[in-house]
């Protein structure tokens, strides 16, 4: 295995990049016994100014959420002050399975939300952002214009809730006329995941 690697070189997991005396290991790398190895399939990058080495993963990448990732999921359960979401999409990629995320009442809206049920209900499709993975739980927020419920169902008859007008943010049921409230995303009902 040759040890002289150049920036931009194609590299696979396990390839030796250098030693910690020479470089500062950055993302896409790992260190064992003082040697820096790649842990991704991707492009090698040397930053000559900072001495940092990283491996940029290839286009496909892993669909595992990081802090800051935008995710989409269904609300499956509401317990006390927390709504639990079944996350099915991370960024632009659909998950092959799902991951569970937690949305706390204090993270639903920039404004005060008294009860979770005033803002989301079981079955709603929600776009959220990952704010933390503390205790290995995905903590989500829907604070922000483009975050929140993107499709909701009537809690009385199960019909699709429609937006009366974009300004009022009021939702009504197309089937039974029931009015409901949600923390909606700015593109509610537009069909964007």
């Amino acid at each position: 295995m040759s040890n002289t690697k150049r920036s931009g070189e194609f590299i696979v997991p396990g390839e030796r990049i250098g030693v910690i005396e020479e470089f500062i290991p950055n993302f896409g790398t790992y260190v064992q016994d003082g040697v820096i190895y790649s842990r991704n399939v991707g492009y090698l990058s040397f930053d000559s100014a900072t001495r940092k080495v990283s491996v940029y993963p290839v286009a496909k990448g892993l669909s595992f959420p990081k802090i800051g990732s935008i995710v989409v999921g269904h609300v499956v359960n509401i317990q006390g002050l927390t709504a639990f979401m079944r996350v099915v999409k991370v960024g632009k990629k659909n998950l092959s399975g799902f991951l569970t995320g937690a949305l706390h009442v204090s993270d639903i809206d920039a404004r005060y939300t008294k009860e979770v049920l005033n803002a989301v209900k079981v079955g709603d499709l929600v776009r959220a952002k990952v704010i933390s993975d503390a205790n290995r739980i995905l903590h989500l927020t829907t604070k922000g214009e483009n975050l929140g419920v993107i499709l909701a169902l009537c809690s009385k008859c199960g019909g699709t809730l429609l937006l009366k007008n974009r300004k009022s943010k009021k939702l009504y049921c197309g089937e039974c006329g029931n009015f409901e409230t949600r923390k909606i995303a700015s593109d509610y009902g537009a069909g964007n995941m």
Partner: protein
Amino acid sequence: MINENGLRVDGRKPNELRLIKMEVGVLSNADGSAYIEQGKNKILAAVYGPREVHPRHLALPDRALLRCRYHMAPFSVEERKSPAPSRREIELSKVIKEALEPAIFLEKFPRTSIDIFIEVLQADGGTRCAGTTVAALALADAGVPMRDLVVACAAGKVDGVIVLDLNDIEDKEGEADVPVAYMPNLGLISLLQMDGSLTIEEFNQSLNLAMDGCKQIYKFQKEALKARYVTIKEEVEECLR
């Protein structure tokens, strides 16, 4: 089994591999996938995850659960094989999983599972090794962070000669078979089995020959990943234009 010129039933030299072809990213539904042909072996592997574990009580608090299913298609062998997993397939699923596990950063994905599915479409001896090699490619294709690739190859003893990469007949009629999985950059062995009859010295030779074979197959593995990557890059550039 070895002729007067020292060649094997399929005309190979003792230390020669069968023809190998690999392709990465062959299944669109899977998070990662790969295909290998090694001799007449034709094997597909797919990786799903990291995703939430089902059933949930199997989830591990500090790392991902790695699961592996090695399965042979009913038509993959001479006589139809029942599709129900045999004891052999269950054992191989276990040893292949244990061969791949040391290479994966499972601790990055607590409470999730990474599922590997290996389907043998046609078997020609050495399917556990080819299956391990192709599963490692599928894992890399899924973008799962890894310490090293894993590459596997068997060596064995046929007609008193230590040979590399046994085919079906050599596997059945030969004196011994030593499948080995190897992490080429870390120099570690993660799968080792043997059956037959070998002295310690013969075993040592077989082990070394198998590791040599692994190093050769590793080059194909890298090429397969590169081929996949280069086409993606071209597709992206095409879109930008």
